[in-house]
């Protein structure tokens, strides 16, 4: 705002002045309106750079591999996005995912019930686990961070107790349980059904958030819960439904996980909770709630996948991958802070 010489009384002149924004402010305003834009630019640039660095990177096989590596965290990030949009956070998402996958595999293995029934059981358990988080957040009024830190440990313990430390191997899985790990060919590219399911879920929740009243209410609640209540939104009910839906999404991700790993193990997906938060944050969704998109989280998950894969192909140690992801997170949040200061 340098060079502003208008007095407060020359209102129209000031209005006109506001239209003459600097280039930086225009960029800021555009990024404010489309929070997924800057991660998209980062994704495109990183794909191009890694493509130049290593000729094996931009091959159909490798790109298909990246999508498969991203499927679990990407699907998990959908539920995480919903919760972060309400200004919450879920540390227990990975634990819910693994717990649900163990329920799916072990109920079928122990009692011989058909795979589809075991899957439904697992989905119900996931939704119920999300519901427990939701009830603690909305009824007992605990901060989501504390609630999910507690349930993270509880669900991990329940998983280990239930599984008695045993992995259920590929050959022991009931039919249908590893279906999401199967691949089919589209031209030269191998696509796994799990990736397709993840993309379908993204499309569905992008639609729901953008075009339904529930989606609008999720944003309003995250933006300012008090205002939302005064505007007539039943804030606690919206929050509870978000945690329930997120639990269901985590359980579906548990099914994808079985396909990806080719087994149901109580020890898989240990870091998935933090990875999902990373994807959401890099994808431009604000940790303060009310701002962000699921599309951004998909891009965020892909960026992490591309970096890990590209740096591996470039022959760099795995520690550098972690270093790169850490820098990306700090950069993404810095950009978010800068954008939030924008007055479009």
């Amino acid at each position, binding site marked *: 705002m340098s060079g502003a010489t208008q007095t407060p009384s020359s*209102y129209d002149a000031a209005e006109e002045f506001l239209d003459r924004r600097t280039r930086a402010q225009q960029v800021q305003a555009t990024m404010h309106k489309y929070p997924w834009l800057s991660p998209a630019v980062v994704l495109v640039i990183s794909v191009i750079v890694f493509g130049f660095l290593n000729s094996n990177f931009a091959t159909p096989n490798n790109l298909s591999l990246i999508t498969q590596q991203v499927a679990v965290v990407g699907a998990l990030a959908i539920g995480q996005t919903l919760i972060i949009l309400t200004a919450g956070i879920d540390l227990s998402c990975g634990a819910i995912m693994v717990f649900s996958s163990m329920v799916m595999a072990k109920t079928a293995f122990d009692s011989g019930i058909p795979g589809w029934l075991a899957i439904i059981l697992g989905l119900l358990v996931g939704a119920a686990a999300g519901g427990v988080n939701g009830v603690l957040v909305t009824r007992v009024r605990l901060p989501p961070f504390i609630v999910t830190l507690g349930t993270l440990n509880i669900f991990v313990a329940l998983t280990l107790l239930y599984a008695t430390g045993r992995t259920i191997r590929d050959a022991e899985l009931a039919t249908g349980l590893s279906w999401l790990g199967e691949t089919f060919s589209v031209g030269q590219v191998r696509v796994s059904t799990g990736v397709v399911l993840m993309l379908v879920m993204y499309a569905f929740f992008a639609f729901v958030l953008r075009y339904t009243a529930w989606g609008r*209410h999720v944003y309003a609640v995250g*933006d300012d819960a008090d*205002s939302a209540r*005064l*505007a*007539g*939104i039943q804030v606690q009910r919206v929050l509870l439904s978000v945690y329930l839906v997120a639990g269901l999404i985590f359980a579906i991700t548990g099914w994808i996980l079985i396909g990806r790993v080719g087994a149901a193990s109580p020890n898989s997906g240990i870091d998935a909770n933090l990875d999902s938060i990373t994807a959401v944050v890099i994808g431009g969704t604000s940790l303060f709630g009310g*701002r962000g998109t699921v599309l951004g989280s998909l891009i965020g998950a892909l960026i992490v996948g591309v970096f890990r894969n590209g740096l591996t192909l470039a022959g760099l140690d795995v520690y550098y991958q972690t270093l790169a992801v850490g820098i990306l997170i700090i950069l993404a949040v810095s950009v978010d802070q800068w954008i939030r200061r924008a007055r479009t």
Partner: protein
Amino acid sequence: MTVTSEQTSSPAQTAQPVLQAKAIVKTYGHVVALDAVDLELYPGEVLAVIGDNGAGKSTLIKCLSGAESPNGGEILLDGTPVNFRSPQDARVHGIEAVYQTLAVAPALDIASNLFLGRETRRAGFLGSVLRMLDMPGMRKEAKGHMSALGIGTLQNMGAAVESLSGGQRQAVAVARAAAFSSKVIILDEPTAALGVKESKQVLKLIQSIRERGLPVILISHNMPQVFEVADRIHIQRLGKRAAVVDPKKISMNDAVAVMTGALQLAPDGKLEEAG
């Protein structure tokens, strides 16, 4: 100093009040915020509620708009007792409030804010099965509401509310109340955060709402504004109604004197110096 009885306003209207509070009591622990307060709002009038900090203005309108439940007393709407448990409850009965905190969602666009909590869906399959919102319809309708209130400056209903000026945001909040209210509009300090020019716009809004026949309760600290738009002034003091006066018959100084307790209402209906 004593003043004549014409200065106090025994309501000239013989009509039934649209909204009436009878001996409303609201306590927070040991603090008595409202001590048996009466209030009457008649059809088509602007009733200003003034009072010092802590006089109970905000608590009073929170009780009337369902944001708080009174501990005692009665609220009548068109003569029928009502019991609001939430703002949503009051809204269903046609009472819309604009709170000091504005209650808009900054990241959502103007149309989404106007229809927040009562969105309309698309017709047919898209609406009934996919529950898809009718965005173009809501934007069109939002524009209609805005221009009906003479807010022509806001053209793009898809613009995020956070991109608007303070006055424009207030206009969105008032327009939302005006668009959906069928009985009463309550405005809590609508000009508190605004500049001179923006305040003028909001006062014009209030007048255009009255012209449409809707009664308005206006809570304000700003005496010149109150005297400009109000038909009657309800003066709150220490959790009680000190007096109801007619702005055409009382000076601003006397109104402030009642507010601060320098003048009080005598049993004969006159204002007299507090002894």
